[in-house]
């Protein structure tokens, strides 16, 4: 967790560089979307203490289910604006199938099992982003 921005290229390169014997690295990055063209800010709140535990638990579960040698989860909180990078995950594996699947698993669990909440701030006011049923349903495939 960090408030500061991160550089995707730097993080991805550093992650790939510290792997030994891994043939595949998959990364996913989430970016603040401004669908209506009216977004002033995206404020991200989290639960210090629980967030670290939840992310560690999700990463451990991914490493238990797939043959992944390493996992990286970066997630920002605080005030972000359109096109800012919100978060990234990276997985490293001998083969790409495990790396892809583990990354998808991490994303599905991050969406609805890690204690983050997003609020959109526009000229019209502020509103908390509602959780989507699809995000909860996505967990059932694992």
């Amino acid at each position, binding site marked *: 967790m960090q408030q500061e921005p991160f550089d995707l290229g730097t993080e991805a390169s550093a992650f790939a560089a510290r792997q030994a014997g891994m043939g595949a690295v998959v990364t996913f990055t989430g970016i603040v979307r401004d669908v209506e063209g009216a977004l002033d800010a995206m404020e991200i709140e989290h639960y210090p203490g*629980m967030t670290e535990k939840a992310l560690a638990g999700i990463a451990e579960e991914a490493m238990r289910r797939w043959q992944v040698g390493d996992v990286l989860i970066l997630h920002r909180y605080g005030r972000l604006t359109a096109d800012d990078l919100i978060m990234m995950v990276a997985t490293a594996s001998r083969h790409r199938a495990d790396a892809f699947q583990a990354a998808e698993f991490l994303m599905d669990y991050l969406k609805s099992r890690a204690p*983050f*909440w*997003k*609020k959109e701030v526009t000229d019209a006011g502020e509103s908390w982003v509602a959780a989507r049923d699809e995000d909860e349903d996505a967990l059932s495939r694992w």
Partner: protein
Amino acid sequence: MDVLYFAWVRERIGHPKDRVETRAATVRDLVEELRAREDRYAAAFADLSALRVAVDQELSDFDAPLGDAREVAFFPPMTGG
């Protein structure tokens, strides 16, 4: 114990944390005590299906026993990623 609130639950109640002395046996019992405090608590806890709870920083449910829990948190469904 410490009772924490996040996102719109925090906004509706007006502060992020209460220090609570309670003998509530379950999360649901604790919610009943909180509801009885003031209208803004009753409003925040009006619809439990819209809320999630963590006991000692682990996701839990409203029927969970509190035991000697030190920290209970209430919040809406999470929207990470």
